[in-house]
């Protein structure tokens, strides 16, 4: 006997070509959920929200919609604030989610972080009664992205056919493969070495550079808060010093925090801890506040790069 369907997590990748194919792949999936009285969430870019919503007609009122380009701008936010949040809201019930984290127009540095996110969904929702369908634009996304979609989804849907396939890989293997050195800044960066008694200077430098770059005042504070948490983790989870670098590339302010120690838990920053927990919220908050968070970890050091769009 297999375990009851309710305890099973199903993660499907949908390769679609064009608008009609998109609707044919997503709308029946949504309707099946509604027919089974399952809570349904559609988290896709706004133009696709409108497409699906229009096709559903009156039934759209029964569906929760989210603009993924906002909610999932930073892909590391999607597990805690979108998927897990929805699953937990309806704890004990089977839920159904259309989640589209990768769309044409995602920047090259976002793609590996998105793929790592797709892999870690399989960890985050393991044994959760949820079905998640992830549409991929097979006409417009690079071939490499589609190959990785096979690595991260045990089931692929294409041309109306749903198939289990052999390409699915261990989520942590995919994440490790994409644990890559971050490119050096293309311009000279402001640099500061810090320890636990120097975090105020870290916040000063970030604030100064972010303001000069023209970041909105509230986002300057958000970035200071995020960098402060990453810097705190860098020096309190291991002895020694951290190094901060701040610079601007195009319409982005970037902050690198490098500290000693290796990240061993790739789910860190993607799990909302118990309300009474003392720890585990720093990286989570940084993921919530920043537009992109890249990580490169080695046995003796970890670099976290925070992006803020101006």
């Amino acid at each position, binding site marked *: 006997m297999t375990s009851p369907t309710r305890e099973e997590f199903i993660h499907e990748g949908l390769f679609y070509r064009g608008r009609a194919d998109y609707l044919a792949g997503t709308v029946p999936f949504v309707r099946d959920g509604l027919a089974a009285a399952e809570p349904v969430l559609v988290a896709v870019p706004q133009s696709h929200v409108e497409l699906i919503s229009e096709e559903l007609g009156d039934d759209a009122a029964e569906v929760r919609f989210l603009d993924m380009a906002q909610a999932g701008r930073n892909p590391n936010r999607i597990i805690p604030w979108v998927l897990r949040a929805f699953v937990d809201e309806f704890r004990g019930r089977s839920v159904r989610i259309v989640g589209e984290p990768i769309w044409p127009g995602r920047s090259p540095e976002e793609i590996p972080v998105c793929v790592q996110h797709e892999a870690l969904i399989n960890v985050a929702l393991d044994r959760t009664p949820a079905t998640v369908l992830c549409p991929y634009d097979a006409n417009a996304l690079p071939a490499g992205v589609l190959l990785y979609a096979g690595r991260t989804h045990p089931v692929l849907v294409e041309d109306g056919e749903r198939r289990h396939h052999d390409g699915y890989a261990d989520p942590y293997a995919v994440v490790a493969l994409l644990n890559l050195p971050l490119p050096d800044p293309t311009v*000279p960066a402001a*640099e500061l070495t810090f320890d636990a008694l120097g975090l105020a200077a870290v916040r000063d430098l970030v604030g100064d550079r972010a303001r000069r770059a023209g970041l909105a005042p*509230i986002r300057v504070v958000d970035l200071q808060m995020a960098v402060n948490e990453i810097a705190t983790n860098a020096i309190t989870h291991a002895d020694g010093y951290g190094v901060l670098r701040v610079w*601007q590339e195009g319409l982005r302010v970037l902050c690198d925090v490098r500290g000693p120690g290796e990240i061993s838990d790739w789910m860190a920053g993607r799990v909302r801890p118990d309300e009474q927990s003392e720890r585990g919220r720093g990286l*989570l*908050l940084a993921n919530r506040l920043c537009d992109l968070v890249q990580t490169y970890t080695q046995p003796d050091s970890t670099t976290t790069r925070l992006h803020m769009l101006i």
Partner: protein
Amino acid sequence: MRQRRGDGPDTPVIELPRRAAELAVLPVPGRPGLRLVGEVDCATRHILDAALETMLGDAGDVHLDLTELTFIDVGGATSLVLWASRLRGGRRMILHDPPYELRRIIDMLWGQPATIEVDPP
């Protein structure tokens, strides 16, 4: 294309003084509470924690005057929220004029804790 304004954020810093957070915790005249002056981060959190410990036996609502609190990190906010969660019998912790950081952290990570009131809301 790179955009530059003024000196630009990419001007290298040769040397910047090490600056640690400083925090003073003062009594609030006339009612049970604390006035926090300065910054709470991992260098000063222990000062906040120690001050909160001394308030545990008090009765009634606890007032925190945060007008002069210029920064608080997630660790400091966690201290406040967990301390407030131990309040019983209808007692609450009232945060007067909390900085943006504190509102943002509580809102994003806890929502609206039952025993915390924010003034102004």
